[in-house]
């Protein structure tokens, strides 16, 4: 027992101390958060600049139709052509030139010229305004009274409300559930593959460098294998926990930071109050648009049962990982070099990929029979089930799936132990499936 813990320790520390691990563990959530906040920040920053757009209107009727905003202004130019404005574009300080041709009613096309990529906000603003304007003109031409149009305008909003057994109602968000299912399913796929492959590479390293020969006289092969498998599992868990902690840390850190800033701007209240709110994560008063943004996000997530998802993720990660890692370990022990791994990798890779594809399908229809079946089959259940869990899977299915997974990974470990024991000391032999079968039957 002591020896296993020594092996686990070595497998764990050598990996965790690696630069690549540290960088990846810290950088991934920072990058994700940075990407989210960065793009949002850039978008708001750009909107703060006043953009003057020159309009050359050949129809001469749209003036005033496009409303000005705080940052988007329109200047109508008459008696001029696009080319002339273009020439002095740099000096004029215009952001873009909007060209409305005479035949716009027929073609429904206008041009926006600029020396840079115009922002989505500007484009949308113009499109929306002109849409309404030209639709109205067309309606007028067809003799439809405008007030009828106003009365029949419809905009449907779907508010999904989920009730629980206790009768409590939660407003859910389909997109969030979809996203969480997708992220956790994909993360599971990545983790199983990544850490499973690490086990295989580790076993091969020990075999091809003849390290096993040195260690095998002090440790039983099974201890060696399990030490490696468990050590790498701990590496995976460490990475996962750090990711979760960092993601939440960054989210709340950013919330606090931005809230404080906006609160200062609004000159509203003392810092203690903000701290309170940041900690409670509950809206009490208006402290700017950031508050609203965070509350929206937090509100959408509140319908999601995070503890349950985390627990399931941990269970399915461990189960799926143990199952696949032992398969990967036996492959690593059976071969002499990388090229030989191909033939054995295929049957391991296929179920993982099938799991990935079924997962994508399961996100659309989480209770379809295909999703249910594949979330019970142990080889695919970790990935597929993760995508179904945010949609509240019946308990019996969860229990059955968990039970089957446990049985299977115990079987896989037993089998891998047998192959591993023979494989690690076998060199210079191209191993076939028949050979592996023989190893399984060896008594000792």
């Amino acid at each position, binding site marked *: 027992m002591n020896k296993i813990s020594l092996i686990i320790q070595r497998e764990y520390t050598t990996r965790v101390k690696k630069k690549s691990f540290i960088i990846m563990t810290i950088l991934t959530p920072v990058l994700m958060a940075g990407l989210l906040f960065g793009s949002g920040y850039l978008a708001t920053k750009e909107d703060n600049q006043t953009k003057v757009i020159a309009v050359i209107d050949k129809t001469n009727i749209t003036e005033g139709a496009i409303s000005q905003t705080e940052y988007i202004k329109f200047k109508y130019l008459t008696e001029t052509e696009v080319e002339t404005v273009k020439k002095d574009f740099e000096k004029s300080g215009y952001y873009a030139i909007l060209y409305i041709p005479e035949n716009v009613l027929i073609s429904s096309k206008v041009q926006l010229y600029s020396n840079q990529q115009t922002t989505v906000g500007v484009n949308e603003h113009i499109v929306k305004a002109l849409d309404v304007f030209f639709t109205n003109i067309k309606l007028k031409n067809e003799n439809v009274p405008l007030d009828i149009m106003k009365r029949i305008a419809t905009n449907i909003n779907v508010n999904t409300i989920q009730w629980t057994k206790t009768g409590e109602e939660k407003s859910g968000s389909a997109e969030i559930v979809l996203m969480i299912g997708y992220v956790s399913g994909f993360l599971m796929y990545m983790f199983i593959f990544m850490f499973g492959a690490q086990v295989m590479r580790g076993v091969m390293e020990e075999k091809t460098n003849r390290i096993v020969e040195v260690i095998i006289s002090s440790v039983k092969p099974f201890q060696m294998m399990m030490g490696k498998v468990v050590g790498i599992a701990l590496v995976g868990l460490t990475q996962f926990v750090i990711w979760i902690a960092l993601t939440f840390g960054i989210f709340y850190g950013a919330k606090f930071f931005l809230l404080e800033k906006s609160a200062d701007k609004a000159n509203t209240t003392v810092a203690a109050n903000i701290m309170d709110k940041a900690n409670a994560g509950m809206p009490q008063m208006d402290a700017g648009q950031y508050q609203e943004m965070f509350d929206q996000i937090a509100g959408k997530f509140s319908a999601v049962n995070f503890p349950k998802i985390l627990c399931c993720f941990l269970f399915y990660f461990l189960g799926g990982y143990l199952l696949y890692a032992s398969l990967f370990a036996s492959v690593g022990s059976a071969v002499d070099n990388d090229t030989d791994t191909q033939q054995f990798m295929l049957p391991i890779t296929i179920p993982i990929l099938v799991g990935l594809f079924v997962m994508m399908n399961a996100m659309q229809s989480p209770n379809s029979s295909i999703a249910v079946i594949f979330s019970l089959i142990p080889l695919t259940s970790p990935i597929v089930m993760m995508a179904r869990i945010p949609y509240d899977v019946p308990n019996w299915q969860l229990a059955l799936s968990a039970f089957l997974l446990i049985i299977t990974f115990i079987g896989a470990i037993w089998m891998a132990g047998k192959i591993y024991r023979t494989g690690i000391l076998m060199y210079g032999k191209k191993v076939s499936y028949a050979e592996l079968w*023989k190893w399984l039957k060896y008594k000792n």
Partner: protein
Amino acid sequence: MNNFLLANNIVKQFSNHLALNNVSINVPEGSIFGLLGPNGAGKTTLIRIITQITAPDQGEILFRGKKMTMEDVYHIGYLPEERGLYKKMKVGEQALYLVQLKGMSRADGLKKLKYWFEKFEIQSWWDKKVEELSKGMAQKVQFIVTVLHDPKLLIFDEPFTGFDPINTNLVKNEILRLRDNGATIVFSTHIMSSVEELCDHIALIDKGKNILNGNIDEVRARFKPDTYELKFRGNAQDIKDTLDGGIEFIEEPTRGGVGHLILKQQRKIPVRDMITAINSTVDIISFEEVIPGMNDIFIRAVEGNEKKA
């Protein structure tokens, strides 16, 4: 001979060949035991059975009179023929890991490692990565790790490969010193000169069978070809005339007036009679029995076995 380590009628069958066919060896306590044999003879398989890495199909290993168990493995230091280290790990860290796996405590291991690193003058390697070491350097580290926990039984599989003559000598002396300190050593090698220098007992395994066994002097005596080497002053023809019949003479070149003759007995003639006869015709400078080297014995034994098979 006491029974420190006994292998009794070991049989090990692999899927397509018989690796060990009824092999028995008896290693006396405090001896250096040479396990010899051509490549693929089954030496490594036998060693793996002794170290409990694989189990024999038949037969048993007795260690200090009792059937060997996993617990006894702690008392074995095993240096395998194919030996490797984690390339990315630091030398000291790795050595410490390996001796801890052997069951030593961290503090104890650290203390002893420092001592041995100093002794082998390799302290500066402690924080180097293994991939920076040469093969011979890595071997030194492995040797230290093998003997560090003062095992009662040491098994070295080809301990000298990869060492330069200076380091070979260093390791040889260490092996002798370990024996003097009470350890029993089994080692396999292809270098027959080292067998002559170090071994007290040998076993020669060929094609899974033990074809030669015993005390090295006895074995060499058994193989002595009844041949004598004579150096003398005088006429070689006189000797041939005196010793008429039953002896084949091979004349070696004369150097500085000293004649040199190899005498091969065709039939047993008492050595005393031979000397008396020679003494009466020439001045004897030296007369000695030719004892075969292990190299010759090895080749003759293995070739003899091939012919039988």
